[in-house]
């Protein structure tokens, strides 16, 4: 890893940390469970790393590990988003609940 790559990665990390703090401290306790499953789904983006590992044919071990990693990350992405949507649909305003 070259110095420039590392520095730019550190920049991204620091700014993301700052932004994350700002954005997430605004989430009300009401939505903390959906928040957790949403961030879980989002961090399933490690899928993009797994995909390359599974498809690049570096060696058999890497392909197997990559395949398992793809399964795990995809489960998180799909499961996480589906369940977050399902939860968020339940949070209704008073008027909407009465109509049901």
């Amino acid at each position, binding site marked *: *890893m070259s110095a420039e*790559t590392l520095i730019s*990665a550190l920049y*991204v990390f620091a700014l*993301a940390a700052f932004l*994350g*703090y700002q*954005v*997430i*401290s605004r*989430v*009300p306790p*009401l*939505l*903390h*469970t*959906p*928040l957790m499953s*949403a*961030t*879980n789904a*989002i*961090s399933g*983006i*490690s899928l*993009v*790393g*797994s*995909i*390359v590992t*599974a*498809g*690049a044919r*570096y*060696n058999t071990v*890497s392909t197997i*590990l*990559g*395949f*398992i*990693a*793809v*399964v*795990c*990350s*995809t*489960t*998180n992405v799909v*499961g*996480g988003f589906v*369940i*977050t*949507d*399902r939860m*968020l649909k*339940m*949070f*209704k*305003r*008073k008027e909407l609940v009465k109509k049901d």
Partner: protein
Amino acid sequence: MQTYFIELSYLLASIFFILGLKGMSHPETAKRGMHLAEFGMLMAIIGTLVHHEIVTYTWILAGLAVGSVVGLAMGLWVPMTAMPQRTALSHAFGAFAAALVGISEFYRYGGHLEGRIMMSALGFEVMLGALTTTGSLLAFAKLQGLVRGTPMTYKGQNIFNMALLAVTIGIFVYLIVVPGSMPLFFTMVGLAFVFGLLLVMPIGSADMPVVMSLLNSYAGLASAATGFVLSNKVLIIAGTLDGFSGFILSILMCRAMNRSMTNVLFGAFGSAATAAAGGEQQGSMREVGLEDIATQLAYANKVVFVPGYGLATAQAQHAVRELADVLEKRGVTVKYGIHPVAGRMPGHMNVLLAEANVPYSSLYELEQINPEFSSTDVAVVIGANDVVNPDARDNPGSPIAGMPILEVDRSKSVVVLKRGQGKGFSGLENPLFFKPVTGMLYGDAKDTLTRLVQAVQHA
């Protein structure tokens, strides 16, 4: 050209992820936000599929298919009461994926990575990934009831854990300085897997929300470290967001229990050591009749429900809402007081009640509801214990002294729905149960609430 396409898709994904989380600040904007995040994810995946290093799609497509089926099944069928277990499992999956990618990278270069910084990042990735995997699996087993949920402790536990951690970090440092040893690397990975179990073992029951948040944080940081190893910015961003979200949640949870992170991690709360404190309770608990309570509720002006983990275990969320419905029909004002650490993960109670069609405007946070108890006629505590324990406020010697509580004992009357006469998960006596204002209703919460609905209708 191809690189631009990939990087651009990652940039868009990062922006959509941030917008998605920003939407989470309100229930009305959250759904749209999530759709943006989902779109961002799709972009990133499509972008990755054209990566020049990919030569075969067989395993990728197979993995995507299997993962989608498992994820969809879990997403659609897991009941809301099992949400803590599901979340623990997904932390394990995410962390395991990160660990595997790290191991594969190490193996691919035969341990001779490009420079020490790379090895440091990879070490963090693999260690955090490994310990979060086993830690989350143990948390899952505890929540699912596969193993006992209470803390498991033994003499010298903290010293042993620290020693193990020191050895693991020692190997890590050695690998950075003298790279290339496969056996040492795999020893380090193995030790990290073991350490995950040891870390979660002594933490149990009521401390679960903190553990869940911490594991969330670790899983996110493992992803961020993967981003450093692969020089992939969207991974760094998404992992950091996840890591910080978990970190903020664990701080909020600790604050809601007035305890420090070290105390939660190494204190093994709820073990025999703390049981002696508090002393003997004088007086006796007063058991009350269902009919009396029904009458009280029916003629009240304001009723506040205070749910705890017992609500989830009894699956009583729908029964509460039915009771609230019949009360509201009679003109009673009904509110719900939610303690931040009620349940087994942050926001657990809110989701359960939302599932039962309780509008979110009726759910009140601790600071909002506490001033209202003095004007409350009946406070109904359902399967909650420590979060309503007045000792936290009145007794400086109590192990939970200083923990913010829902002050139900300020209302005109308190009804406690409880499974049996036993103590709560913390093993502490709860003076609330002995107060003259308090009446106890024993039995399964769901069953009791259903019978209360009928009794109120006839009142």
